[in-house]
């Protein structure tokens, strides 16, 4: 995980939840590993304050999208592992679709040129 650099992007509000769902959708992960996974798949382009991850995780658990249970990590330390629930998977697919649609529309809008007569 890198320290702050210039080409890192600040997260849009509300996107952290989706990123977490994405990271966990590939298999159960503990909190630190979620961060690593996001860093890895984004190529380190996203800036996430490390501690901020946890309120988001707990919120998702409370919404019933994730389950959590204690286990042993690859570093041989106790850690809490998060996994998608069925509801979480459904929400993840839904939100992915929404995001893609929005991103597509935004891209189209921003790419539009002034048409010449």
């Amino acid at each position, binding site marked *: *995980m890198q320290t702050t650099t210039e080409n890192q992007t600040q997260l849009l509000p509300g996107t952290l939840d989706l990123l977490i769902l994405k990271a966990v959708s590939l298999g159960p992960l*503990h909190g630190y590993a979620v961060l690593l996974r996001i860093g890895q798949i984004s190529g380190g382009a996203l800036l996430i304050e*490390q*501690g901020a*991850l946890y309120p*988001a*995780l*707990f919120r998702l658990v409370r919404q019933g999208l994730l389950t959590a249970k204690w286990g042993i990590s690859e570093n041989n330390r106790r*850690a809490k592992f998060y996994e998608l629930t069925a509801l979480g998977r459904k929400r993840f697919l839904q939100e992915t679709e929404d995001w893609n649609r929005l991103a597509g529309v935004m891209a189209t809008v921003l790419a539009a040129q002034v048409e010449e007569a």
Partner: protein
Amino acid sequence: MKLFAWTQFLISSLGSGDQREIEEELRSHIEHRADDLARSGFTRREAERRAKVEFGGFVKFREQGREAAGGQFLQGFAQDVRFSLRKLRKSPGFTLAAVLTLALAIGANAVVFSVLNSFLLRPLDVPDAGSLYEIQHGNEASGFMSYPDYLDLRDRNHSFDGVAAWSVSAVGLDAGENPTRAWIAEASGNYFDVLRIQPFLGRFFHASDEHGANSAPYIVLTYAYWHDHFQEDRSVVGRAVMLDKHPFTILGVAPPGFHGTLLFFNPDFFTPLVNHQQVGGVEDLNARGLHWVFMAMGHLKPGVAPAQAIADLNAVGASLEKTYPKDDGKMTFSLASPSLYGDYLGRPVKAFLAGLMLLSGLILLAACANLGSLFAARAADRSREVALRLALGASRRRILRGLLTEAVLISLGGGALGLAGSVVLLRALSAWQPIPRWPLHLVVTPDGKVYAVALLLAVASGLLFGIIPMRQVLDTNPYEVVKAGSTVKAGRRLTLRDGLLVIQIAICAVLITSSMVSVRGLVRSVHGNFGFDPRHVMLVDTDLGMAGYLGDRVLPMQRRMMESLSTMHGVDSVALADTLPLGGDGKASSVFAGAASDLRPANALFLSDTYDISPGYFRTAGTALLSGRDFNWHDDKDAPRVAVVNEEFARRLFGSVGGAMGGIFQLQDGIRMQIVGVAEDGKYESLTEDPKPAVYLPISQSPSPNTWLVVRTSSAPGVDAQQTGAVIRSRLRLVDASVPVFVQTWYSALDSVLFGPRIATISLGVLGGMGAMLAITGIFGMAAYSVSKRLRELGIRVALGAQRREVLRAALGRPLKLLMLGSVAGLALGLLATRVLAYIVYQATPRDPLVLGGVVLAMLLLGLVATWIPARRALTVNPLILLREE
């Protein structure tokens, strides 16, 4: 769905919200990060340090995490409570003031609500109290009817599950010793069956026990009388006792909670109405024209609406009117609750208690406003602490929760204290017997409803004044506050706190205005002209019927009693009357023109209070004879019938006092009376009444066993009233020891008519005092706060040469301006409110310069007292010390 969310919330808060678990998870994260950093070449120590820094605010994320997990509300709450208690312990003065303020306000509300609850809300202690109605006349708030009319109503209606009747009477009870006076409820045979109650001991009397007049000499004791006078002796059942010299048999004892159906009358026992004549009643059971039965009541049949029942009763009434035009006037009916004698007492009591509840609610509101501004000031003083906590990562929600917890803790403390105080007060009130002669016990016991209301009020008021400083906290900008110290914006516009203070002062002014108005009214009514002079007068009250004196034996006995007292040392004169004005048991007669021949009630000119008096009554009672003569003992059965009337009577019948002299009129019995004198007007039934006609008849022409001896002494009986009373009793015992007598001063006999105004004045006075106290603390708090906030500015002003007056104006101008604003608003509202008071308190008029001046003066004094200390503080500002401190 809600339940599901709630359980999920509970489970999640149990499962993941645990603080230790969250900490462990966060720490595990940091360890993992440190592992990675160590692998990339840092020493373990450096790696851990960096991992911690990268992680960010540990405490902040732990708290946010906990909130996100929805967790540990209870644990957080316990923490809040502990923190608040610590905070409160640090400022004991503030805490004490706040708790006491609330204790007073909530206590007042609890007391008023308890009274309201036991008088109006709590149903009578009989089964199905909700469907029990008193049959009341349609055109006046009274239920008096004749016995035959009652029987017709009972038997001919189709709406009631039985109609019972009862009447109030006093008897001499002789259970082996000298007779004692007891108050009884004479009840119809079906009384207990209609009320659906079962005896505690023995049996009740029933309709089947009645076989005509004087056929059922039975007694049912109330539990309290059995307890007090028969020591709960179970063998009383079947015992024979003498009532007014007639043998009666005790049948049984009523259940403990039952003491009749009237809240303001606790009878000692019950006797059948058919035995009316044996217990001192002079009225004939069969006389349809004598409307002496006090009340008829019954349960409506299931499914019958009150309106239907009224129509049913009116139909019976109309037929009675037509059949007995000579005896029955207008016979329409309405239904009312029997517990407060229908609308007669019910309406004023309801209005008064509602008003009192409103006022005490206002007191609580004022207290809340007061505490709200105190809290706001406190929050402002604590802005630095709040800013620090915010900067350290506490959430605003958490800080607000803490403040609210503090507020609710204070209000719960105040509520508990107030409730405890009110319970003590209510005990005293329940034990109190306000009117010595009348068996009245105001049993006011707080029940679950009262406790619930007190708790609700406490929590609600805590939340109310707790949220007042909320915006202040939400607006706090931690960086500004920490940088600049407390932020004083020299705002000139009215803030929320100013508004609260104005409202509070206005409420206080309302209370002070209404209590002053009622105190003035009371003073006037006590010193007003009653139409008699109660000073220096002792009264002896007895019923000769209780000792068996009836018919022709009454008058000689009464004369002997008068003679035995007239020779007493220190006695100026003695007179006698069957009832006294303002005595509470007056009687009224229909008055007809002298030439009238058709004496049906509808033809009566007016109703006149009637008093049977002995010669010398006017001089002894202090009632001025305006013209004509007093009675003498020659106005007896063989002489022409004569009467003395009051001015109002003379004016109504003859137009003037002079015209009435020698005039002739008739009463119901058709005997023509000649007016031989005119006396001054007075008060006869209540202090608030308009002038009423009254007629005095010589006792030797219309004897009555009801006896009030009026004994005028040469000096005030005040101190030695006891002694004089004892001498009177011993003298009368020599005449006949079996006559139960009750001796008191005329003033204490007036207690019953003054009871209402007195209660009103006391309660308003107490509330007014509380309002004043709240206003003082409110203004004081505001002034002290504004002085302490601007101390530095004041110091600079002094240093620059400001005069004392200017300093004072700068420091206290604003609180005083608010005081004026509030007072004016409150005075205006108070004057409106006192219109209601005029119904209860005699001559309660707000258009009284003394009241207006008094209120203004009181408010000024309040302002002076409240701003005295802050003003002194502002004046003693020492600029040198102040400026050095910075």
